[in-house]
């Protein structure tokens, strides 16, 4: 349901653009052809380029547009050659690759560190890392990205300044290609992870400390359950659950962040093209990418929402109610 409403929302947003896509299109065409363009001709152009039909009443336009979107036809990109759909298909895997690796690392690192800090509560390890995570958490990811770019990429040249893979390597699952993909992706992922895991660690630490104080932990200890098993199955498992909601929010956040990140590292993902489309007023590409990103986020959230019941039986018991 939310997906449909988002698409409708974007449709109206684009319509409200100052100057609107149609007059922009006319200006564009005027430049390329000196002669006056008849209204009729313009409509046909608009139809195939923007799949908009300015002459039809607004709601009919909406239906037509939705129809096209459903079949994956987002219209032609003005700047880039080729249809919007092609561009998206080309760019999407890169963004997904970077984001998924970043999310997994951020949460993995955050959870483990948080649990350790909880178990060593009060020690220098705990206070030290709390300070560090608080500091790292307050550094915006793109500041970290800029810093990495400047220091690591340019000055020390350990890592490439941008791009997703060394050109010329034929894509496929051979070692060279994969190596170069990771080599290029390290810095973007690092800047997301370094600034992200702090928040997760603090959250995890708080939850774990609360769980450790619970009575069933003491009963388990008395029952002879070994410390390691308590740490994983009791404290770890029950402390991670509330983080699930943070996981959902971070999906949306990271997708948003990809735009800036890919710009800094010239990493040709969805974000990079989206920014290009915005600057170049390339409406169809802009709308297409925006919709794809939203659909990805919404489906991820929906998926997480459904599986939440499986992880936390307490919630499943009360039906699909308040899951986050």
């Amino acid at each position, binding site marked *: 349901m939310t997906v449909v409403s988002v698409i409708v929302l974007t449709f109206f947003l684009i319509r409200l653009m100052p100057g609107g896509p149609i007059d922009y299109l006319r200006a564009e065409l005027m430049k390329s052809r000196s002669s006056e363009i008849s209204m009729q001709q313009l409509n046909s152009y608009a139809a195939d380029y923007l799949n908009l039909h300015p002459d039809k009443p607004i709601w009919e336009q909406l239906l037509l547009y939705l129809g096209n979107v459903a079949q994956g036809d987002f219209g032609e990109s003005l700047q880039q050659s080729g249809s919007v759909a092609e561009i998206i298909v080309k760019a999407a895997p890169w963004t997904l690759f970077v984001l998924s690796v970043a999310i997994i690392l951020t949460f993995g690192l955050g959870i483990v560190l948080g649990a350790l800090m909880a178990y060593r509560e009060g020690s220098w390890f705990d206070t030290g890392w709390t300070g560090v995570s608080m500091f790292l958490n307050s550094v915006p990811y793109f500041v970290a990205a800029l810093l990495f770019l400047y220091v690591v990429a340019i000055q020390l040249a350990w890592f490439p300044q941008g791009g997703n893979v060394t050109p010329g390597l034929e894509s496929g699952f051979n070692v060279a290609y994969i190596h170069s993909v990771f080599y290029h992706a390290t810095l973007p992922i690092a800047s997301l992870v370094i600034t992200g895991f702090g928040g997760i660690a603090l959250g995890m630490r708080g939850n774990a400390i609360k769980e450790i104080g*619970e*009575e*069933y932990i*003491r*009963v*388990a*200890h*008395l*029952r*002879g*359950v*070994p410390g390691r098993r308590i740490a994983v*199955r*009791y404290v770890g*498992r*029950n402390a991670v*659950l509330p983080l699930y909601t943070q996981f959902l929010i971070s999906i949306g956040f990271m997708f948003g962040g990809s735009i800036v990140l890919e710009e800094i590292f010239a990493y040709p993902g969805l974000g990079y093209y989206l920014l290009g489309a915005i600057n170049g007023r390339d409406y169809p590409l802009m709308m297409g990418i925006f919709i794809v990103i939203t659909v990805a986020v919404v489906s991820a959230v929906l998926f997480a929402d459904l599986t939440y019941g499986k*992880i*936390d*039986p*307490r919630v499943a*018991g009360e039906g699909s109610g308040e899951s986050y």
Partner: protein
Amino acid sequence: MQAQTTRKFGVADPIFEVRNASITFDMDRGESRVMDSVDIDIERGEILGVVGESGSGKSMFASALLDAVVDPGVLTGDITFYPESGEEINLLNKSEREIKQIRWEQIAMVFQGAMSSFNPTMTIGAHFRETLDVHGFDVEEGMEHAEDLLAQLYLEADQIFDSYPHELSGGMQQRSLLALSLVLEPEVLVMDEPTAALDLLMQRSIIELIREIGRERDLTIVFITHDLPLVANLADRLGVLYAFEFVEVGPAYEVLTDSKHPYTRALLNSTPNLDTPREEMKPIEGKSPDPVNVPAGCSYHPRCPLADETCIQMDPEFSTGNGDDDHQAKCHYIDRTRAEIPLNLTEVTHDE
């Protein structure tokens, strides 16, 4: 180990021998003694009722028996456990690994909040399998044993095993916890307010089940509660705790009808029950003492109607007050207590 230790309170074959056991916490307000050099023996196979107001250190006594005092508490003195087979074990100087062996296999514990004793994201059955497996018991055989334990507690095993703790009613949770504590067939069962959170009818039914299982499996039970009447006809012997030490210990019947300590009498007079006349019910004045600064001399003197100079100066020792020596109280004036503080129970004729 001292030489042949003097038996306390006429206990013949003790399963537990506690000698000046104390627990101290150093709090920012000063060092608080939540257990004050307690000496007591527990008879094998008996049901010992331990009664005390909240804040009198009874939960600490329970943890001491399992050498599981919550840190930063420090347990001193010595507690010797005489298992059925094998030689005596002094709990305090055993290594953590050895203690882990004893806990739950020989000495098990049941807590007040059954709901908070189970891992909310694990089924009840998983708790049983885990406990059996950790102690190296054969899980199949153990689970069968658990099934007839549950049957004896009027629970259908398969329904219980598959459900999560929050899906059971209060009574069912408590009985599942009881079964869990008996699954390794321990010799001693320490119960800290096991039924406090339940309805009166459910409480009483579970008390009957505990009595039955105790007798059937020749189990030593230490039943700790603030609710004197609840344990009155369950326990063979009663120990009354006040200000972190035992002030009266003796056979249940004698402690109820001829209590030797003013606090026990006040406790008896302040408990509402059906057949005592309502006019004589009087609440106990004042507040329970703070562990950091326990009143000098006899710790009950601030609230005791008979208190005088000697009570304030001298902390009384256990004495029999010319009764048999298995019923003693820590009071200078046992005879005056019997005379001056009437027990409204004994006056009334039982009409029912």
